């Protein structure tokens, strides 16, 4: 088999594996969103898993796409999504702490205690 063809084949397989792995992380994040008990756990599941999932998919697509401008665009998109997700997660957590929503502190502990409004401010 000519070396060029082998390289193409290996790249195809690697990129396919990366994309599938990325999708699995998205799936895990979504399961976390649906199953976790309070806002803070859900944010944790969602932002971490989805950011990594998107990174893996972008890596897979960068390998697959031969055009350099498209590759740079893909990485830029990932970086923007990364910073936006981190910021939104931080803002959500901050504003719900400010609204007095307490995180669950122990496994299987009491449900999220909601202190009277305004107490957290």
């Amino acid at each position, binding site marked *: 088999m000519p070396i060029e063809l082998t390289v193409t084949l290996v790249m195809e397989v690697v990129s396919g594996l990366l994309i599938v792995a990325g999708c699995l992380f998205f799936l895990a994040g979504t399961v976390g969103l649906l199953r976790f008990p309070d806002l803070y756990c859900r944010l944790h599941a969602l932002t971490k898993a989805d950011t990594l999932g998107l990174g893996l998919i972008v890596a897979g697509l960068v390998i697959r796409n031969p055009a350099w401008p498209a590759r740079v665009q893909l990485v*830029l998109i990932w970086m923007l999504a990364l910073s936006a997700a981190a*910021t939104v997660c*931080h803002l959500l957590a901050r504003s719900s702490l400010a609204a007095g929503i307490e995180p669950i502190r122990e496994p299987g502990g009491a449900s999220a205690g909601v202190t009277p*409004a305004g107490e957290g401010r």
Partner: protein
Amino acid sequence: MTALGLLLDASVVLLLVALATRLLLTRHLFEAIVLFVSYGLTLSLAWVRLGAPNIALAEAALGAGVTGALFLNTYQRLAERIGDGAKSPLLEDDGSQDPPSWFKGLLGGGVILLGLGAGWALIGAGRRPAFLPHEIAARLPETGVQNPVTGVLLNFRGYDTLLEIAVLVAAMAGVWSLDRGSRRFGRARGEPDEDPVLHALTRFAVPVTVVTAVYLTWVGSTEPGGAFQAGSLLAGAGVLLTVAGILPPPTAASRPVRAMVAGGMAGFVLAGIAVLPLTGQFLHYPEGWAYPMILGIEALLTVSIAVVLVELFVDVPAVPEPDPALESIDPSGDPLGRALRGGEDS
């Protein structure tokens, strides 16, 4: 591959119909809004599958993004008015005002019949080959651009786009006239948000967004992109700046804001008139001038659309407290409120 594609299409279609049904029938406003945003994003997937990336871009930015933000903004206003934890028909519709069930049944039956009829008519409509797409493709070089959608929007059907920006300006005027005497959205009103993370994101994202918007406007002549997508991106940057308290929200009273809102439409009309002595027809660009004129109009449109969208987001009229607030509004400064109160002033 086609089987996989069909599977994807079928799941997108099922998801769309399920989301639409659920969001229209649920009794909780917040759930409906979240589902609406998911619906918009799924719909933009559908546009990609239908080979319309131009629309997918606009749908994700406008249909899901800006409209969803508008609804969330309104929800927040209502929640503040009600107070924490209280139940109110504003946010939880118990259906007590809905029409009687015989009407629902009748309407449901009618709607199903209508659906069957429309499905039968459209599926059976035959596959007579259309000539228009080929005609457009053949005459595309005359438009001065290579993206057929931009060619249709700004050359063949320039009138439609002119009227569209007119609708946008009219809606803006409507929202402004509703806004008399209400407080405005945004932290810029008092305390700027000192959150360092939000500020860092804003500093990083706004320049990138502006560059991307300029690129989208420019690339619209050859590839998917154009004034509407670029305008909504810029609007996103504007909303970010306003929410972070870096820029004060634009106001109707500010002359630059009014100039930017009117600029797109004014430039479009002036360009249309300017070509009259050369070609004898409104909006009929002279040969060789089509590309620069379209690019100029698109640049003006981008700014207008961005400012209008930021305004529409920022300017959702606040809900005044029921009675004292109505008393406190000066009737002379609030023609609509006066009309609503039955013209009690003399």
